[in-house]
């Protein structure tokens, strides 16, 4: 495999420009700038809020310096609270070209769009000259998520991704599974797989925290479509989702923006710390995808039974369809047909290997289905976290 070497030693599998709105008021200008380019080259991300938030600042720093990102254009209205100076400095320190368009300062929408397009054109010309270097699985971070789950997700796609994760962990890649709110009911089984007893406690506590949080909110991470697909309770959804983690030892627990320090399997705790504020932990799948990417994920393995169509800004999303009927109906959106397992036409190991092989292809530049279709969804909202404890990362 070939990748783009960054100053921090990480390697990217894409070399894109991100256009970043720092408040909703700067989104239109950012979108217009982004739309002037091919979706493969320029992605728009941003934070809609006008009030400062430490989590959002950290997320933006990590996303703008993700190894798949080569240059960054910040778009500011001018009066928002987001610390644009701090973000620009952080990006500059990473060795990436960065430029800020201040809409109020330069004179409104039109000139901001024109100026932004001009800068991105120049940045892209320089990025195209960047030479790639060899990379291997130990350079990779792979995240996984399930969305639009049904009764087949836990039978086919999720355990198949579990097999892929087992293969990747053996190759010394870092693999991240997440959504502690969707692990409610799995806390004890999961704790029994922890590398240390201290980590086992951290894993257990993260699920207890999620159960408390969702109980306060009044809803579990269980959508009506899950019930249509045959899932009855959050525990049932959890057990199916948990299968994505495979069978490896769990090496660590991280929070959004923490980057795994070495290869192995990590749980990403996405449920905020402290009292319940700012609403639901993750308002939709892309909020979790953005967090997986902020932890350095190069690729997201997305399993779906009901048929999600989303992709993401920054990192390619590979869609693994669990349900054979959904696959027939929504083929154009699906990279892998794991529903074959139900008919006995393929084994979990075969599909796990198929996903592993596709990861290499996508790393080498092949577009996933969601990339081909131009999906670059992104969402970031308010949250707050405490730093992870000392026993959360492998020694």
């Amino acid at each position, binding site marked *: 495999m070939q990748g783009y070497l960054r100053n921090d030693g990480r390697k990217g599998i894409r070399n894109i420009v991100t256009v970043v709105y720092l408040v909703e008021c700067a989104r239109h200008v950012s979108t217009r700038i982004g739309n002037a380019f091919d979706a493969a080259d320029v992605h728009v991300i941003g934070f809609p809020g006008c009030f400062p938030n430490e989590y959002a600042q950290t997320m933006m720093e990590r996303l703008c310096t993700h190894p798949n990102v080569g240059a960054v254009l910040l778009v500011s209205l001018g009066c928002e609270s987001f610390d644009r100076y701090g973000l620009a400095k952080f990006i500059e320190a990473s060795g990436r070209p960065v430029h800020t368009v201040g809409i109020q300062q330069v004179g409104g929408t039109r000139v901001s769009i024109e100026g932004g397009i001009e800068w991105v054109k120049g940045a892209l010309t320089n990025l195209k000259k960047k030479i790639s270097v060899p990379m291997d699985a130990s350079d990779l971070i792979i995240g996984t998520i399930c969305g639009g789950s049904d009764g087949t997700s836990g039978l086919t796609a999720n355990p198949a991704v579990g097999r892929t994760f087992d293969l990747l962990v053996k190759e010394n890649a870092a693999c991240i599974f997440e959504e502690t709110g969707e692990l409610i009911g799995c806390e004890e089984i999961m704790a029994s797989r922890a590398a240390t007893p201290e980590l086992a406690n951290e894993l257990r506590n993260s699920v207890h925290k999620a159960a408390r949080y969702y109980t306060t909110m009044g809803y*579990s991470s269980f959508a009506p479509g899950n019930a249509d697909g045959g899932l009855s309770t959050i525990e049932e959804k959890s057990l199916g989702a948990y299968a994505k983690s495979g069978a490896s030892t769990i090496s660590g627990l991280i929070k959004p923006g923490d980057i795994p320090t070495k290869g192995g399997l990590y749980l990403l705790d996405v449920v905020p710390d402290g009292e319940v504020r700012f609403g639901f932990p993750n308002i939709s799948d892309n909020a979790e995808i953005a967090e997986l990417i902020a932890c350095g994920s190069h690729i997201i393995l997305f399993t779906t039974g009901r048929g999600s169509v989303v992709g993401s800004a920054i990192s390619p999303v590979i869609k693994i369809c669990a349900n054979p009927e959904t696959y027939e109906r929504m083929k154009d959106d699906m990279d892998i047909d794991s529903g074959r397992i139900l008919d006995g036409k393929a084994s979990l190991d075969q599909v796990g290997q198929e996903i592993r092989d596709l990861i290499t292809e996508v790393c080498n530049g092949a577009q996933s289905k969601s990339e081909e279709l131009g999906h670059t969804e992104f969402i970031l909202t308010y949250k707050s976290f405490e730093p992870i404890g000392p026993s959360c990362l492998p020694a």
Partner: protein
Amino acid sequence: MISSTKTTDPRLLILRDEDNVCVACTVIEAGTSLVIEAQKVTLHQALYVGHKVARRPIQVHEKILKYGAPIGSATQKIAKGEAVHTHNLKSDYIPSYTLDDARYNSIEENT
């Protein structure tokens, strides 16, 4: 992980020996007669892919086991061969939110 005993219709999966439910791996129409562990039962309701039926009689408050682990408790007595879903199974953690009208129409929509 996926296994099915020889005496059970191949359209149903028994995931673990200790489970008291099995899972449909294809759409099965209402009125279909099926064999579950050497005993013939008639489905009163269509089963969509991934939906569950009781593998043996289940008492009220009994834990429902799938993947060898509890996924909630029965809210009423469930007969062998009866569908097990949100109408007779509840979470032991947080109640499930559903759109009741959509739940059973999905079978027609999807076939």
